[in-house]
């Protein structure tokens, strides 16, 4: 049984090639059962154009590598079925707001590392007991569940590119930064106070610069509760003003 013919309009540009210019290139491919955009891209690269650049690792929505803009919505290619598009036309663009490696591949890793270093996104244990052989106290299961909910972020970069505020202001930490801060703010093992977090996100680059456009909330492929989380941080930071 032959499937319908899909048409892909794919952004092509190699910033390493001085003579190259950004362009949209059209490809056609026969759809197969259960095909995802990620599978289609692999087929295109295998059968039609080996120079096509895009990222992937896990193929299961866990690594966050294959995020791109699919018909105007930033999301993961591996979790997007081609059957979702009745017209069979699919336009693929790289995530805006990141350094372009080539075609659909962007350097989210560099961004995430810089963000983690800037916001100090690691546990700052309470007290000065740095004995790594000491057993940790057991965590309240409810607290663990709350932390796990925020730990589900796969750092795909969708929230960053979906955020117009972030696009306008380079230094804005975006939803991913606030989500991770919220994760440590909730962690009873972390010694930082609300005041300490205020110095990191209680400003225009953080929670008070957020214009609540909610591109993060509406596009997050892991359905993380950005709207509630950012509002919680905003109230928490505002309460330190009083």
């Amino acid at each position, binding site marked *: 049984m032959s499937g319908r013919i899909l048409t892909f309009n794919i952004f092509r540009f190699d910033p390493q090639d001085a003579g190259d210019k950004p362009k949209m290139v059209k490809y056609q491919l026969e759809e197969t059962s259960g095909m995802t955009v990620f599978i289609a891209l692999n087929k295109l690269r295998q059968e039609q154009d080996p120079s096509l650049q895009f990222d992937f690792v896990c193929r299961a929505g866990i690594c966050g590598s294959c995020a791109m*803009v699919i*018909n*105007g*919505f*930033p999301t993961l290619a591996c979790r997007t079925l081609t059957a979702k598009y009745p017209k069979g036309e699919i336009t693929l*663009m790289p995530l*805006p*707001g990141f350094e372009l490696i080539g075609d659909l591949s962007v350097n989210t890793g560099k961004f995430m590392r810089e963000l983690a270093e800037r916001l100090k996104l690691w546990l700052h244990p309470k007290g000065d007991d740095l004995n790594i052989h000491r057993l940790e106290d057991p965590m309240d299961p409810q607290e663990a569940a709350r932390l796990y909910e925020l730990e589900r972020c796969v750092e795909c970069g969708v929230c960053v*590119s*979906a955020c*117009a*505020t972030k*696009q*306008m*202001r380079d230094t804005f930490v975006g939803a991913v930064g606030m989500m991770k801060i919220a994760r440590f703010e909730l962690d009873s093992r972390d010694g930082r*106070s609300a*005041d300490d977090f*205020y*110095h990191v996100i*209680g*400003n*225009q680059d953080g929670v*008070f*610069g*957020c*214009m*609540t*456009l*909610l*591109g993060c*909330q*509406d*596009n997050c492929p892991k359905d993380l509760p950005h*709207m*509630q989380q950012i*509002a*919680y941080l*905003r*109230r928490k*930071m*505002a309460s*330190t*003003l*009083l």
Partner: protein
Amino acid sequence: MAGKLDIRRWSGVLDLGQSVSGVVLALFLWTHLLLVSSILLGPEAMTWVARNMELAFLSDDGHGYPWVVSLIAIGVAALAAFHVLVAIHKLPLSLRQQKALKSQMQVINHSDTRLWSWQAGTGIVILMLLPVHLWLVGSAPETIGPVGSAQRIWGEYGYLIYLPLLLTVELHAAIGLYRVALKWGAARDLNTRARLRTIKTVLSVLFVGIGLAALLAFIPHTPV
């Protein structure tokens, strides 16, 4: 120092100030529109409202104090100026920011971002039209009755300001309140957010409708 207001905390104060001033202005706007729309109940009803706005019940001769209206206009102007000052830095002011916003909105299809661009655009239009309205009313406070208003709106071409002002301000206020609610966590789930968005649209349509009806209701009172 914890709890002490230092310069680093200004962004929090500005954000809070933007929300509070926006909510107060929106509530004033809707109250104001409802008071003006008393013309729909007839000229007597509006005259009664206008007299009470001038605090006629406090004066012996029943004429009231029109300067109270001027005072309200000055208060609104001050609050609106504060709102503009604390909100304007969030707009894309540089060419680089405008380009970044434009290219992002071309690539990403997101309705709440488009809603915000409407909020920002209407804000700029209001910034130009509101001072004219406040000046017209504040400088002639004795003319807020049915005949004075009709003369201002239809006799002196005030509708050229009031029609676009009505449309933009009703969009801006409802979108703004919707955003303030989400900003501070009034919606704990996405269903509540969808409901708030519907309420926002209903409020905009309702108040634009009332406003248009009120503007038209002034026509018969225009002095020849």
